[in-house]
């Protein structure tokens, strides 16, 4: 990968990778730290791969997301950067968003879903964000997390059930 290709990778997918980091960590500062650590970690590998096509660009993005997950898990294991499941920053962000859209019912539902996702156990939350936010294939999630595809499916199933229950508890029936 050339410097120009690396720049284009950041322009095309940097925002998505940073957003993914934010979903993992729950706040902007930690997300930027994780984003930076992820890129630094990946330099040597990125320098050795081609990134000419859209597919190769997506593959590089998925690789970076895999690294972000592993770094995040390592950091949590070392208890160096532990975050509560739903931080004040995220809450502020959601309520700020809520005010802007004038408390529409749809946005309230989105907020409830995001709260439900954020409240998921880490293993379920990671696969959920990889599928729904990072738009990764099940097989790619399995590859990046080094787990069988069946495990990804079962974690997603448990995540969906948990999100449905959360919504039901908050008055959103029929999902």
């Amino acid at each position: 990968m050339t410097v120009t290709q690396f720049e284009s990778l950041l322009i095309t997918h940097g925002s998505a990778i940073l957003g993914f980091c934010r979903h993992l960590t729950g706040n902007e500062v930690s997300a930027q730290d994780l984003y930076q650590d992820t890129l630094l970690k990946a330099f040597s590998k990125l320098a050795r791969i081609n990134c000419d096509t859209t597919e190769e660009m997506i593959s590089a993005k998925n690789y970076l997301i895999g690294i972000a997950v592993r770094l995040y898990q390592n950091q949590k294991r070392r208890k160096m950067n532990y975050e509560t499941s739903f931080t004040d920053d995220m809450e502020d962000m959601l309520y700020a968003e809520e005010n802007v859209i004038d408390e529409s019912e749809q946005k309230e539902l989105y907020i409830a879903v995001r709260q439900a996702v954020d409240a998921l156990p880490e293993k379920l939350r990671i696969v959920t964000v990889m599928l729904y936010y990072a738009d990764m294939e099940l097989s790619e999630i399995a590859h990046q997390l080094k787990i069988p595809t069946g495990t990804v499916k079962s974690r997603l199933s448990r995540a969906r059930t948990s999100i449905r229950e959360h919504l039901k508890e908050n008055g959103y029936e029929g999902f």
Partner: protein
Amino acid sequence: MKDFDELIRESLLDSPEMNEELNCTMIREFEKRTSKKKSRRWIGALVIPAALAMMGAGVYAASENGFFHDQKDIFGTVTGLTYENATAEIGVSAVYAEDAVNVTLDFLKADVPPYTAIETIRLYGKNMTLTGASGEIDCNGFDTEPAEISMGKAALVIPTGQLPAGTYQLKVNAFTGEKKADAPLDILGNWNVEFTVK
């Protein structure tokens, strides 16, 4: 009713404001690192010490320093590489907490190979013995997850489960260094640490 999967996808959608300065820093750093010679690569980091080891492993073995050693099969074909005599290069301490033995590794020569060329390190049950008052405990299955090496340190968690109260001796004869896309490297030595379960 909106499709449930689509609802989750739309709920998670956002476009965080990109920190352009951060991206510029990353691009400059990428340019700086990729313009350097390939000596930073794993294989490059190993070739010279491995060659030295082949020339005089005996001399190195007698010293305090670790050394690389080729693994050969009965036909003399090189089948792998290990790093040996590393006892004095890695400090090991252990404490028991939350049904696991937490082992801290302190890399005393973190700025030289092989430690500069590994990203994570782990410990397999087959490479340790754990002895308590009632005798040796079977360590099969006590494999740790890979731990990232950061600032010359790494933290391993041995999932022993609950242990009876008492004093235990942990003996380790090899840690395994790993780097993505490269073969694992066994780092051999003789580490003995003691910990207490209350």
